[in-house]
């Protein structure tokens, strides 16, 4: 009997939960806010679905109901990708070590 490809995707999913579990526990508490903003940014990789949806229209009708939702989703995800990564970058720039002065 053949294994349904769904099982392979499920395996990836469950193993990734475990990876996430161990990786996130190792995040230092002082960086929990950047953690939230960067997870925000990466979960916007949902944009790949939006792009497929947006490009699904044929050349006669680029805009149909389905592709319009795709285009809107592209914009929403893009706000998150740019906003999320840049604001994370901005925060991380501020975390500095004690300067050895005196």
């Amino acid at each position: 009997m053949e294994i349904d490809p769904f099982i392979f995707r499920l395996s990836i999913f469950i193993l990734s939960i475990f990876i996430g579990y161990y990786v996130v526990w190792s995040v230092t508490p002082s960086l929990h806010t950047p953690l939230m903003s960067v997870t925000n940014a990466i979960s916007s990789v949902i944009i790949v679905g939006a792009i497929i949806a947006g490009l699904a229209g044929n050349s006669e009708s680029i805009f149909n109901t389905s592709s319009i939702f795709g285009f809107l989703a592209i914009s929403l995800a893009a706000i998150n990708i740019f906003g999320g990564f840049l604001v994370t970058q901005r925060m991380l720039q501020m975390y500095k070590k004690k300067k050895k002065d005196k």
Partner: protein
Amino acid sequence: MSANLSAIFYLISGILFILALRGLSSPETSRQGNFFGILGMVIAITVTFLSIGNFSSGFIYVLIFLLIGGLIGTFIAYKIPMTAMPELVAGFHSLVGLAAVFVAISAFLNPEAFNLGSPGNIKLGSLIEMSIGAVVGAITFSGSIIAFLKLRGIMSGSPITFRGQHLLNALILISIIVLTYLLCSTQSSNLFWILLAVSFLIGFLLIVPIGGADMPVVISMLNSYSGWAAAGIGFTLENSALIITGALVGSSGAILSYIMCKGMNRSFFNVILGGFGATEQSFSKDNEKKPVKSGNAEDAAFLMKNASSVIIVPGYGMAVAQAQHALREMVDTLKKNDIKVTYAIHPVAGRMPGHMNVLLAEANVPYDEVFELEEINNDFANADVAFVIGANDVTNPVAKTDPQSPIYGMPVLDVEKCKSVLFVKRSLSPGYAGIDNELFYRDNTLMLFADAKKMTEDIIKNL
């Protein structure tokens, strides 16, 4: 580009996302981690374009919409003040949720584009996956909107409860399951729209009863939901980058929720069922008769000048008063006088995980002077002065002594063990939990009644 090759690239971008989170284990590696995240995103988007390979006129519109979103995002990222991070993150969560809903709608209306069958005859597995993605996405969207409004102060932070609330929520959750089942058996588009509407409604109802200070839990929970929504869509699209990312974000948010609940010694369900802080307002009036020592900036400056070590305990009040820069100035002055200064941060200080750390970092406080509760709690006994600025419940010794108290068992900072405690607060009003802080009436406590920023500035003048 062949489907197999693009699948491998999606896997690579998934791995880069894991490295992005891994980088956050220390501030030194974090910037590199963020770079990995950006790289992973660029790969995922490029591969998607190449795998479609259809550079027809639609392509230019994709770029236009991408650019519009990108510009808005960039603008927000540079304009947003650090004190507004909690609402920004809540706002971003709502966008992920809505994007997931839109992609699911798109896939439902035009399943051919995603190889999922034809309208009215979508593959059963795909239909279940996209329903889950759409439902969780819709809950994330409406829940985050409420969280955003509460954090922004547009909506009152106090919990909104009514009779039969839990019963109503339970009925709606059951109806979501029934609707999903019917949708899968009939493939009716009307049911799909109803399912979405009901999901939006439940997201709204779930967050409304949760109060302002529980926002750290809510915001982490919505973070988690946005991940599960992305994973649901990932299954529909058979895309490993999305599945990996969804699982990472989902578990990340779940762990943060757990840490926040533990910081308050409350169970997750206790927080989610809401209404905390609405019941305990009836603290007895005789407390007001108890003697309280209050002082001014001069007294505070005198105490600190003669101390050899000072521990700062910041809380949400510091964020509200935007006092972090003034605070850092005060600490600089103290350090010039060879006084050792450290910062103690409670896990649930502020309105989101790590909120205080970011504000202190913004004010150029080096991160190696900032300590978490477990690291620093023993140091209070040896310190001369604890400077509590904008925190309240997280310092209340009642959590250790009175089993009747609603916050009993919550881990608290042992500030009362310091030789003297300076408490910057606007009035004697109880904190969020609605209980009186025993610390106010201790002999070694000096209350400084003022706005946090103004008081800090006055102290600097007197140092």
